[in-house]
């Protein structure tokens, strides 16, 4: 088990390093940072001064190593647009995105577990078809379009919810639904398939033969086993949530990391962009690492592989 964890940890570290290089070189090679600082139409002399002060005329690899060392030490640099510490900026916005992620994941599970279980217990009935329809619509509906439908319904027609901002909990309702519905179909399909498989297993038949009530069999015996693969999927879906939060937070002007990412991209704020790409990737790496270790702990067969 220790060996497995060390191996996975080593891989995670290498991936994080590769991501840092990609985040740095991709953005540097696709744009001119001096131009981004000075603004369009800057004079060549000014650009030269900026390159000098920011150390941009050094070889790219030196700049990368310098940036990497600073980042590891926790110095994320200064935002070009917001003129503040990137670390402070990121720390300010992080809680909103974490909260949104937890709420959206909670909403997705709240919808998909009961529907997935019901669809599996009542296969090929109207409940199964309703669950399938909800999943299919969720997969086909672009999340930004769904978000605008919600705005039209709850903000404009019914006037129940505020359109944008992040001041109160009411501001989180629509982003949670929009983001949660985006990831729910995958959970629902997995739980349905898992439950159908588990419900036909021998030990469930034994439980039935013993005369245990159906409710107890479904929730105590079957669901517990059907939920195991959900742990692995959760890590992957959290990655989707991180990506989706960029779109959803931007639509609702929810003041989190996703909205900051969008702002930094439109303002060509290199230091912020690099850190957010790196940060979201590292978060994903850590989540999958945690999921892998949890799975290996739950299922000893994985450790050998």
């Amino acid at each position, binding site marked *: 088990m220790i060996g497995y964890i060390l191996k996975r940890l080593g*891989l995670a570290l290498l991936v994080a390093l*590769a991501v840092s290089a990609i985040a740095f070189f991709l953005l540097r090679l*696709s744009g001119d940072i001096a131009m981004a600082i000075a603004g369009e139409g800057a004079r060549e002399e000014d650009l030269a001064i900026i390159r000098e002060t920011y150390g941009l005329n050094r070889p790219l690899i030196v700049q990368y190593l310098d940036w990497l060392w600073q980042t590891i030490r926790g110095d994320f640099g200064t935002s070009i647009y917001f003129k503040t510490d990137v670390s402070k900026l990121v720390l300010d916005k992080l809680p909103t995105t974490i909260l949104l992620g937890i709420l959206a994941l909670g909403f997705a599970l709240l919808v998909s577990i009961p529907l997935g279980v019901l669809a599996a217990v009542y296969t090929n009935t109207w409940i199964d078809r309703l669950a399938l329809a909800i999943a299919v619509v969720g997969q086909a509906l*672009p999340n930004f379009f769904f978000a605008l439908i919600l705005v039209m319904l709850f903000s404009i027609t019914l006037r129940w919810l505020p359109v944008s901002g992040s001041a109160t909990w009411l501001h989180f309702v629509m982003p949670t639904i929009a983001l949660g519905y985006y990831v729910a179909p995958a959970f629902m399909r997995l739980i349905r398939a898992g439950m159908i498989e588990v419900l036909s297993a021998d030990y469930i038949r034994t439980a039935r033969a013993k005369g245990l009530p159906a409710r107890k069999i479904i929730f105590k015996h079957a669901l517990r086993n059907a939920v195991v693969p959900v742990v692995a999927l959760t890590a992957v879906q959290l990655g989707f949530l991180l990506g989706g939060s960029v779109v959803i937070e931007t639509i609702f002007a929810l003041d989190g990391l996703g909205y900051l990412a969008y702002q930094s991209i439109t303002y060509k704020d290199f230091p912020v962009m690099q850190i957010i790409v790196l940060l979201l990737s590292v978060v994903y*790496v850590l989540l*999958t690492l945690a999921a892998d270790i949890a799975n290996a702990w739950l299922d000893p067969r994985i450790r050998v592989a």
Partner: protein
Amino acid sequence: MRLVRRFLGQKAFVIGAGILAVIVALALLAPLLAPHDPYAQNLALRNVPPVWYAKGSWLHPLGTDQLGRDYLSRVLYGARISLLIGVSVVLISGIIGTTMGLLAGYFGGKVDLAMTFLVTTRLSMPVILVALAVVAMVGGSLWVVILVLGFLKWDRFAVVMRSATQQVRSLDYVAAAEAAGASTSRIIMREVLPNIVPHLIVVATLEAASAILLEAALSFLGLGVQPPLPSWGLMISEAKAYMFFAFWLIAIPGSALALLIFAINLAGDGLRDVISPEGRA
């Protein structure tokens, strides 16, 4: 029971493929079917509602947008953009991913390890974020979006092709070809590749849907296809300012997008059920 399920799978495939065929036909015939030039502005007739509203008219069956352009014509031409994105992105990412998967699955060992590392790295970076950043730097255009998405979305091809190749590789006829002295490249191209094509098609359909959704999201955020092209995502973005009193400007391209994705997903799922009934998840 399995036969029934297989039949149902085929029914889903028939419906999905049917809708998809209609959309492809509409896109190809757009120059013949569109009642107006999709770029022609008429500032006297802005935000005209579709024909089913009291103020609508058959002159503009789906109304006009904020610049007085005929919405039906724009939606029809928009289908071309979405389909072009789906096909081109899948071509690029499919070639990259399939090559990686074939090599990793066939050779195993260090090659396999290298591919696993590349896939893990790629998966850890959110596609939409990286695509947004690169498009913002390079400047948005249809081809930039296609290239960026093509070079980002090869991961699922690589993973599925790898496991499919591993399965095929252990079969007798590959061993027979090896024993007969066939070259490695010949075995991969002539023996392995044709046998994993069904899996390739399934991944390609689902990835096309995902690429179309991503292009729409990028264009919606203003960092994808640029005006005046009638990308459905861009049309929704442009109509956002008018959503209070002209929601159809959002609902029409949004529904078109959802219908296209629905059709592709249905066809892809149906295909998967027919090809590998046991691999249904």
